[in-house]
């Protein structure tokens, strides 16, 4: 992934089409763009993965930041309903639009805090309600 040339112009502007009846165009190593971007946007929910991306200097790459902005189409229908980790994925996607968060997540302390908080929230949110 890091070996590929990344420029702001290289990212696709239109969200991929939603697969209908399970059939989709598999053009990237046997996967469709829809599948890969869905997988990626959900992987972003994992704080450790974000920390890894930050440590590999992805989060400071303008092209990558543009890609993160582009990925916001997952917050809207009809894409929204395909997220199986909706809470964490959407929150992380929202946080990732902020430059400060993109810089801070490289800290292992913040990563660990997010893991612990995320776990606690996932366990306790329904108790409050």
């Amino acid at each position: 992934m890091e070996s590929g040339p990344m420029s702001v112009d290289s990212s696709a502007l239109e969200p991929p089409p939603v697969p209908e009846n399970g059939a989709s165009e598999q053009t990237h190593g046997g996967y469709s763009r829809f599948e890969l971007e869905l997988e990626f946007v959900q992987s972003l929910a994992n704080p450790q993965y974000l920390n890894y991306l930050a440590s590999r200097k992805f989060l400071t790459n303008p092209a990558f930041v543009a890609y993160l902005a582009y990925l916001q189409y997952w917050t809207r229908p009809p894409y929204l309903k395909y997220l199986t980790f909706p809470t964490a994925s959407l929150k992380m996607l929202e946080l990732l639009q902020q430059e400060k968060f993109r810089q801070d997540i490289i800290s292992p302390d913040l990563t660990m805090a997010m893991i612990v908080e995320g776990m606690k929230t996932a366990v306790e949110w329904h108790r409050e309600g």
Partner: protein
Amino acid sequence: MDKDLDRRFDRIEKAISQMIDALAKNHPSEKAAEELLAADVELTEGLKLLETHQNNNARIQQLRQETSLLDTQIRDMASSLWNMRKELKAIPTTPRYPNGTKHQFTTAELLAYARRISRNTLPPPGVTNGVDMSAPQPSTQPPEPEDSFRLQTQPTQTQTPGTSFNLSFNGTVGTPGPMGSALTPNTTTDTQPATQLPPSQPPKPTTEEILPLHLKPTINPLHDASFHPWPTEDKIRSGGLAAIQRLVDRGIDPRGHDPAEEERKLREAEQAKRDAEERARQEREEAERRMREERERMARERERARQMEGAGAGLDRRDSVAAFGRAAQKPKQFTFLGADDDDDDDEDD
């Protein structure tokens, strides 16, 4: 009204005084008496009029009171409406998509989605509640280090592989597991306030703990169950992006590359290769068979030629010919009908 009454009073007073004067002069006047009577009637009418007036006035007062009361009510209502409006306006609206298009969905879709995400948004009840395991049950037994009801996170990239930590949940309080406090160097223990910990609650050894390890899952389906509100590292590593990374590592451009298609092509190529080999083998065998037949045919021809020669040469060579014939007949036994056919063909010729 007052003036009118005053006038009537004046008139009756005047009539009375005239009457009194007339009586005093001992000269009763009929005219004065009539005047007094008329004045009295007039006064009575005036008083009646006054009564009506007073009643009307009272009614007016009452109505005014009612009006003012209703006015107050209206004002109150208006002000409360205004307050309510102000409150409504003060409620912060959702900043995004305030007037966005509404997206239709059916109850079935909603339920299907809820079922799909439920395992990722809420841990199974036994995992967090800890059921009997975390209930305060004083015991002398030390707690088992490998608590089966636990939440486990993956070790981070930057840490050594051994630094995993457990989060076991006692009721509502998250406490660092024994492994976590020993191995996790940083915020895990800091963010889990130790002050909230209930006093040491070593769980009573249950059937599950007494059982050998491999039997535990049979009585507790949640044994070793873990919950993560996000995809775990191994899931990410086994996903499509990782597959593409492996392709890139192998120097293959994933764009337009389909492993299934490639495999199919590879299989086809292998099949074609196998087919070609099979064909080549068959051809080779066919050629060998033809060559063998050719050789046998030639051998038979030679033998026949010798027999012809032998017949013409005389009896002195019969023994040797017979010996040769016996030797030559041996392979003939293997040629079966072929030899006869050949002979027939020869005779036909």
